């Protein structure tokens, strides 16, 4: 990611914000112009819950660029407390422990580091609830 891209999405990455339809109350993770449920255009930015449950997961052994030292790592589909689903890395958890892990909570971690210029992207991940 470029520095402006990192900066533009920082709020959502740092604090897990989403968008809520002011008319019907439906909440989304990704930015929307129109509510998928009631077609209203009146949406507001809101904080999403920092707790949820893992619905499914995958253990990644062929890493994406920059994640070479992290294999194996876990990507989970998380249903947040308000029902919104998001994808996140699950940390502080070994592949042998993930099967019995259900409840998770948000943590602040390094997402990536630019290989050439060193700029760090910080943001949310999830870990087993303590």
């Amino acid at each position, binding site marked *: 990611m470029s520095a402006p891209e990192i900066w533009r999405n920082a*709020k959502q990455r740092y604090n897990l914000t989403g968008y809520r339809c002011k008319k019907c109350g439906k909440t989304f993770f990704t930015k929307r112009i129109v509510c998928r449920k009631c077609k209203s255009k009146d949406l507001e930015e809101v904080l999403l819950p920092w707790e949820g449950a893992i619905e499914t997961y995958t253990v990644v052994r062929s890493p994406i660029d920059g994640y070479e*030292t*992290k294999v194996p790592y876990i990507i989970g589909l998380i249903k947040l407390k308000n029902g919104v689903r998001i994808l996140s890395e699950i940390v502080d958890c070994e592949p042998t422990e993930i099967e019995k892990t259900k409840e998770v909570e948000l*943590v*602040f971690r390094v997402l990536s580091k630019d290989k050439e210029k060193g700029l*760090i992207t910080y943001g949310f*991940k999830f870990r087993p609830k303590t």
Partner: protein
Amino acid sequence: MMTKKLEVNILGWGAYIPIYRIKIDEICLEWGEDPSRWRKSLGLNEISVPALDEDSTTFAVEAARSAVKRAQISPNLITAIYVGTESKPYAVKPTATIVAAAINASARLSSADLEFACKAGTEAMRICIDHSLVNKTVSLAIGADSAQGKPRDALEYSAGAGAVAFIFSKGVPKHAESAAMVLHHFSYVTDTPDFWRCNGRKYPSHAERFTGAPAYFKHTINAAKGLMEEVGTRPSDYDHVVFHQPNGKFPLKAAKILGFDIKQLKYGFLADKIGNTYAANAMIGLASILDNANPGEKILMVSYGSGAGSDAFDMMTREGVQVKRELAPKVLDLISKKKYLTYGLYAKHKGKLIM
């Protein structure tokens, strides 16, 4: 001579310790050293280690978020954030502004990162306490470090990782409550070359035996004595005392020299379980005291940073301390939640393994 009391409140506190540990025995196994000799000479059993995706900034954010929870205030009220660390991920680019964004603080903020080896965190506290005193506002001070020790160096056996945050306020904002009150602080610094890291170097250097008497003990003892003299207190007036803990032996010796009883160190002494967390070190001990103390108890904290200097603080717990401790993870809970690493994994976690 009695000086005027500061009476600045601690509204909230928060600690963070990563879940990974390496045992001193495991490091000894790697280098063919005798574990019982090292455990005995350092007074340590294991040290905390960051996860692969953690650094002093992520630690600072976690500690700050817990402190905000305990303070029960809107982060908008905070008008100063100072972060003390010697392991900034960036040489140039502040950690304090990342913390501000991650706790949703306002942009109308006085902020910077501070470096003074292991004393940077308490220097952040002093600046914030004085900021709150002068401006009658809320401030956030953080000590955070993910310290590095050169492979096989004595520091590799003691460098831990963690962070701690305190929220100060002169007066108590609406709906908030005071957990403790800072009454006095006192600093003692001299130019002493006991430990240093040059620009661009990954690992620090130290002056071996020189780190004891002319460095740690001289500054710790002078700051503690200076404060007690100014305030008019004696060691027996304090319910709790916490010193900087570069190892498990120095703080015990400092306590003895000053005339404190080992019982007064009970909650603040944590080095044997997590190692030296540098800028967070004595302050994590203070957080642990607040996790356990009763209202109306007196606390003395003395930090130490190489280079060198000590900050001493005279504090008193208040009613709010008991309710607030339940609002975020306690230090002893953070310490007890752990996973052990082999030396190979530890080297990877500390970035000692270059791919």
